[in-house]
């Protein structure tokens, strides 16, 4: 098969497939579920197929010019394929979990359609090399996540969904202004062209960088645009896992890497400013996670905090730090998705999310408890779990760039991470049994356990993700290996 076809397949199988799902559901709900899983899995498998090709250092460029610079430009390089693999893998596990989780709710058609469409547009975003194309996919993810967060139709839930939508779209509209300014300056929305033009023409202004950053920070839920994320915890757990942990919040991070590391070099100012914003975000949200009592809100705050680490690594911008940040995307995605899915099991079986009312669940749901703990260890960065390597590399890269003081801020963030995750684990799974709950259905347990095992495997077999990420970093920074 042609590699360009592969790329198109990765994007359009789920995008087009998504709209077939409600129609399929007329015949069989089960078939719809399986098809949704198959579409997402096929994206994953096709992404895997691209790995050998991109690892050899080649890239795939698909171009279809349109008027006004609105070209249909796709680029598959190491970074894109890396991101595509992670997002589709985690989404596949999450959809598997949903089979059981959403089975007793209404609006399942909408759910599966939106999840599949979400993943498809995510894939589109990952591969697009045109700013406007990127923007379009970006907004599709916003719309789908709006519907997904508002899955339950009660008024407060819908309001939270609106909030998430409004905040992220507010950000992306501002970002759009930034994109248009780039077009004014360079005459193109195509990133490869922009890169070439800027080489001769000098840099883009700080104002434009700031405009784009507003979009990125709001999508990736970083201070001061982060509050929609904990609020979006009202969504069903697989959705929160998908949006908060694995995929949606990584969009901003990914776009930062795509625009500001690969193609445009922002002013040095941002190398100092952005780590500070990220550091503040990491500490503030970690601190908030220590006081919150709602299980999902805590994990959501934890996501904000960890996203800070990823931004930190990317903003430092040297080889080791970016490598660490990419691995962080992977490790955090796996572990955090696991945490959210465990939270979903707890929530569904005990009918409460308030950790002060929970306790002692390890005796009735041992697998969930162990999976939760394993994922928590990975987020804390304890070897042999994968999270260790990413955290270590980010720190190591930051030290290599001589930013000792910012590192100390993040060190506090890392301290707090250990404390709040243990607080949650102890209050939910250990101690006295307050609300009885039983273990969830096998497919749900299997998904959380597999995420925990993946986190562990990512640590033991760090060689493979490391090599892959290293290839990506080499390409991104133009370092020839």
């Amino acid at each position, binding site marked *: 098969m042609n590699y360009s076809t592969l790329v198109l397949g990765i994007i359009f199988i789920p995008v087009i497939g998504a709209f077939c799902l409600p129609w399929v559901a007329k015949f069989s709900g089960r078939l719809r579920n399986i098809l949704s899983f198959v579409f997402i899995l096929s994206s994953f498998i096709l992404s895997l197929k691209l790995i050998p090709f991109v690892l050899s250092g080649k890239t795939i460029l698909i171009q279809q010019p349109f008027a006004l610079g609105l070209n249909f430009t796709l680029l598959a390089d190491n970074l894109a394929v890396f991101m595509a693999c992670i997002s589709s893998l985690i989404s596949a596990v999450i959809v598997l979990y949903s089979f059981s989780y959403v089975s007793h709710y209404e609006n399942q058609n909408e759910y599966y359609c939106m999840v599949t469409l979400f993943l498809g547009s995510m894939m589109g975003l990952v591969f697009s090399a045109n700013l406007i194309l990127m923007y379009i996919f970006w907004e599709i993810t916003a719309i789908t996540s709006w519907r997904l967060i508002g899955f339950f139709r009660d008024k407060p839930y819908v309001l939270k969904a609106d*909030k998430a939508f*409004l*905040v992220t779209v507010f950000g992306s509209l501002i970002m759009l202004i930034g994109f248009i300014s780039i077009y004014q300056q360079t005459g193109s929305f195509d990133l490869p062209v922009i890169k070439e033009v800027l080489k001769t023409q000098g840099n883009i202004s700080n104002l434009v960088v700031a405009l784009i950053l507003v979009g990125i920070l709001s999508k990736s839920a970083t*201070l*001061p*645009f*982060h*509050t*929609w994320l904990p609020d979006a915890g009202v969504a069903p757990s697989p959705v929160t896992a998908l949006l908060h942990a694995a995929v949606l919040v990584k969009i901003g991070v990914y776009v930062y890497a795509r625009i500001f590391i690969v193609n445009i070099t922002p002013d040095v100012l941002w190398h100092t400013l952005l780590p500070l914003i990220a550091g503040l975000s990491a*500490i*503030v*949200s*970690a*601190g*908030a*996670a*220590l*006081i919150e009592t709602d299980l999902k809100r805590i994990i959501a705050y934890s996501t904000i905090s960890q996203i800070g680490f990823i931004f930190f690594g990317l903003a430092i911008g040297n080889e080791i730090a970016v490598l660490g940040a990419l691995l962080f995307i992977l490790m955090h995605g796996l572990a955090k998705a696991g945490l959210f899915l465990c939270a979903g099991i707890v929530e569904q079986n005990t009918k409460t999310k308030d950790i002060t009312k929970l306790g002692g669940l390890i005796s009735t749901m041992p697998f969930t408890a162990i999976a939760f703990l394993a994922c928590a*260890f990975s987020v*804390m*960065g*304890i*070897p*042999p779990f994968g999270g*260790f*390597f990413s*955290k*270590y590399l980010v*720190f*190591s890269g930051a*030290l*290599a760039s001589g930013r*000792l003081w910012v*590192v100390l801020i993040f*060190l*506090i963030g*890392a*301290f*707090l991470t*250990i*404390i709040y995750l*243990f607080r949650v684990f*102890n209050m939910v799974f*250990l*101690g006295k049994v307050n609300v009885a709950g039983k273990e969830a259905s096998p497919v749900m347990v299997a998904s959380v356990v597999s995420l925990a095992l993946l986190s562990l495997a990512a640590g033991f077999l*760090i*060689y493979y993700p*490391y*090599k892959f990420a*290293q290839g990506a970093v080499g390409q991104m920074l133009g370092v020839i290996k």
Partner: protein
Amino acid sequence: MIAKALLLTIIIPLFSGVIMFFLPEKLRRIKESLLVFSSLASLLLAIFLFQQKLTFTLPWISPGLELSFRLYQFSSFMLLATAFFGFFIALYSVVFMRGRNFLSQFYGYFLLAIAFSNGVFLSDNLLVLFFFWEAFLLLLFGMIAVGNKEAFKTATKAFIIVGITDLCMMLGIALTGHLSGTMAISRMNLPLNNGVTNLAFILLMIGAISKGGAMPFHSWIPDAATDAPLPFMSFVPAALEKLLGIYFLTRISLDMFQMTTKSGVSILLMTVGAITIILAVLMALIQKDYKRLLSYHAVSQVGYMILGIGTAVPAGIVGGLFHMINNALYKSGLFLSAGSVEKQVGTTNLEKLGGLAKKMPVTFTCFLITAVAISGVWPFNGFFSKELVYEGAIERGWIFYFIAVLGSFFTAASFLKLGHAAFLGKLSPENAKTKEACFSMLIPMIVIALVCLIFGVFNQLPLNHLIQPILGIRLAGHNFSGFPASIWMVVVTFAVLFLAVANHLFGVKIKGSGLHALDHIRYAPFMAKIYDLAEKRFFDPYNWGLGIVNIISRISLGIDKAVNWLSDGLSVWLANGLSLGIRRLHTGNYSIYLAWSLVGMLVIFGVLVIL
């Protein structure tokens, strides 16, 4: 071939540990034999590898980050010590743990602990070392958590304290790797000449002394003494963690950094050591529980090692290392005796014990030997290592020597109290039927007590063959074996021990019982207040830390709420205000709309004209 044997020291306990988790609870015999035989295999391997020099490298992450292992003098010694304690404590646990829950888990963690410590001792790459080092943290949590019902709280405390210090260490590793341009430990040798290298040293040091259990990272140990299963105390905080912590401390101060008597960090280490010695032993004095009392000594003794190594003079370093192995011996021996009492009597509360010497003569004898060893009585091993530490300390300042000797006074005093309260005095009627512990629990205690004696009487044996070769050329003709060089220091030591006995007799005379022999110190005018606060855990650094964290998180939540108001409050208010304003303009009056349109047209014309 031999190089592969190196890997076996990690792989054998690792695999048998993992298998252990999957064995059903019913197969008790099989689990017990697996534990004993794989720890025996580790011991045999360690003996086989002893004094060999090997390196072994496997590819891992990337060039520069390889799984590189190096066996040399120091690591082979540590391997042997780990395997020694591993085997004998395993033998002991098999009987001790019978009838308890979570056997698979405990035994599994036990074996993994051997595997990971061997990994630490063998790694020649800083990141690999840290990988094993932190994996050990998971075991710590697991091993404490399988204790009694409330043990998980202590386990969490231990995990948080050690986890946080390990993060510091991780940063230190990244910094050291960056500064020296390599991750290979054997190729590092940084001078401590500027702020950054000192910071790197301190970060690594935090990891090392926290693993060793020094202040202020100690406070989980006394809690674990009451909550965790006893073999854990005897194996991990008493032996393995000291070995790990002091091993790493020695590596950083001797090999990875060039610490000299002029380095600031040397003063820092000595201060930490001295404070740990004195504060922990003062807490040990007032304990009324056998295990808790021992646990404070487990903290206090590590102070001597840190003080010794911190002096950066040969006598001190040799003394510190010698003290490390001695302490591991008598401290685990002491904990085993506590376990024997716990198993046979059912309690370790000193108020309910007494007069056990007649009922448990072997346990008593072992206790006696290890207790005099820890008190530093000639000719037991503790005497010789303490004298060496004193010798190093006095070279650096009399204050350190003074504190160390004072610490010895209190150590001796508290062991007199412990021995008196537990084994002498009146036997309570409930304990009248107590029997001696069974054979396989006695064997480890006897062996350990014997080694304490041998390492004292024939101290050339460990000093010349185990410890002094580690320092190699640094020692330059010194030989510290045999009787201490300085006679007046020996005299002081004897005088101090004599004072401790006198103090004990005095205490017994006024209070009438061994348990309350130290009450005159406990309730001394000024001390009473301090002790009251200490018993309320006012001085627990962990609580202080949590207090600070609490403040940080409250501020954070405040910021979070404020930011949230921007989106939930301010923007809603603005939108409402704006729409209200615009609604006012739309009155439905055509003439006003017409006027607006005219104004708009004029503006457009105006703009066009100006342009």
